[in-house]
């Protein structure tokens, strides 16, 4: 089978990945480059973003440092984005705060990075016609959107908000052949998970509940490649848990 015909290949596609300076976003960028994509990567920390760029396979990749919770950051990225065949919104933050301690500032911080940034970046890319016909937009939500674990009130809300946003977007872009989907990971070994452990969560116990064990960033990256590739051209408006089976026995259908 030649590479050009391979429906799982991303060769000839330009893909924007946010949150590429760490964890899941970094691995998505690396894996996409390994299956042929040309990357535009973004993150806040310039050193770690450059480390990702150095790890990409092939040349011609672009790295843009930008804080996407600010409109200027979104503007910078959209200005240089050029034509994109795929967009992966992997940037995000999490912080455990019990409901009684939630304040406006916490909600604003979480929603700015997790919800408003991917929605507004997508809006600007569409308005500036940066997303090609048959392009694929992928949001990264979280199992927390449905499981709403203790002290994840703001985080879970910011992630479940992506469900409605993605569903509505997918209808509006269907005529141009642009697809929108969302994957919701369970516990994946990244710096974010280390942060939760330092925040006092008993991660070992939580991870032990995952039937297939903790996930690796590669597991999310391979799913991202599938959703970006032509192999999934008949899939849109998906909200898929990628969680090693963690959600199966949970009481999330009440």
């Amino acid at each position: 089978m030649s590479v050009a015909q391979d429906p799982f290949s991303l060769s000839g596609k330009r893909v924007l990945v946010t949150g590429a300076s760490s964890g899941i976003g970094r691995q998505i960028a690396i894996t996409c480059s390994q299956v042929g994509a040309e990357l535009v990567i973004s993150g806040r920390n310039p050193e770690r973003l450059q480390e990702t760029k150095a790890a990409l396979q092939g040349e011609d990749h672009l790295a843009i440092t930008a804080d996407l919770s600010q409109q200027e950051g979104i503007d910078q990225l959209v200005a240089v984005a050029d034509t994109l065949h795929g967009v992966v919104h992997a940037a995000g933050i999490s912080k455990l705060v019990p409901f009684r301690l939630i304040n406006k500032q916490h909600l604003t911080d979480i929603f700015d990075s997790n919800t408003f940034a991917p929605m507004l970046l997508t809006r600007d890319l569409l308005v500036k016609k940066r997303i090609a016909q048959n392009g694929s937009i992928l949001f990264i939500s979280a199992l927390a959107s449905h499981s709403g674990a203790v002290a994840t009130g703001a985080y879970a809300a910011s992630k479940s908000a992506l469900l409605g946003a993605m569903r509505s977007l997918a209808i509006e872009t269907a005529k141009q052949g642009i697809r929108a989907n969302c994957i919701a990971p369970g516990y994946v070994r990244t710096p974010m998970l280390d942060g939760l452990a330092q925040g006092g969560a008993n991660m070992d116990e939580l991870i032990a509940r995952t039937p297939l064990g903790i996930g690796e960033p590669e597991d999310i990256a391979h799913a991202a490649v599938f959703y970006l590739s032509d192999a999934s051209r008949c899939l849109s408006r998906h909200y898929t848990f990628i969680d090693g089976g963690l959600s199966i026995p949970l009481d999330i259908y009440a």
Partner: protein
Amino acid sequence: MSAQAFSLQDKTILVNGMASGLGQVIAQACSQRGAKVLPAAQPRQPIHGLVHCVDHALECAVADLSEAELTRLFHSNVVQPVMLTQQLLQTDSLAPNASIVFLLSTAAHMGAKGQGAYAASKAALLGMIKCLALEQAAQGIRVNGVSPRADEAIWPDVANSVIFLLADASRWITGTSLLINGAGSDSASRSQMETGAAA
């Protein structure tokens, strides 16, 4: 390394219901990606992927349904694939980390007039997928489904979703079924999407 994650090289895939139209398309796509495809289990041949392609349709209002029709439909759509899976488990025919894929339908998830028996038979598989996924996770065996809309034009795309679920690329995905809704690529699937309620 990553391209390999989407390959089926060195995998033996058993396609249950290979004679059907979709079964043929899936079998051919799997062998094109490097798999050895079998129509039935063979002694001492570890199976890395099991794809169930049996799919019997029945259009009938629930008010008119006969017990014999309902029983026959459940036998072909549910009992046959589940019992074959059980037999392969009991004979240790599935390799560790094997992937099992059932064929469901959008009808398993969404209601439609005249589809009661068919939808129930496909939704039954959803329950089976979730419980079997938990039971087999310790062996690394994964259990998922594909839920395509009824449209022959998307069969090659159904095959690609099956390949993803069989390949190592999906090694952390279990207990789900991928809805293959057509993505609004044709007017029929688009109008289905657009009926989304604003309530």
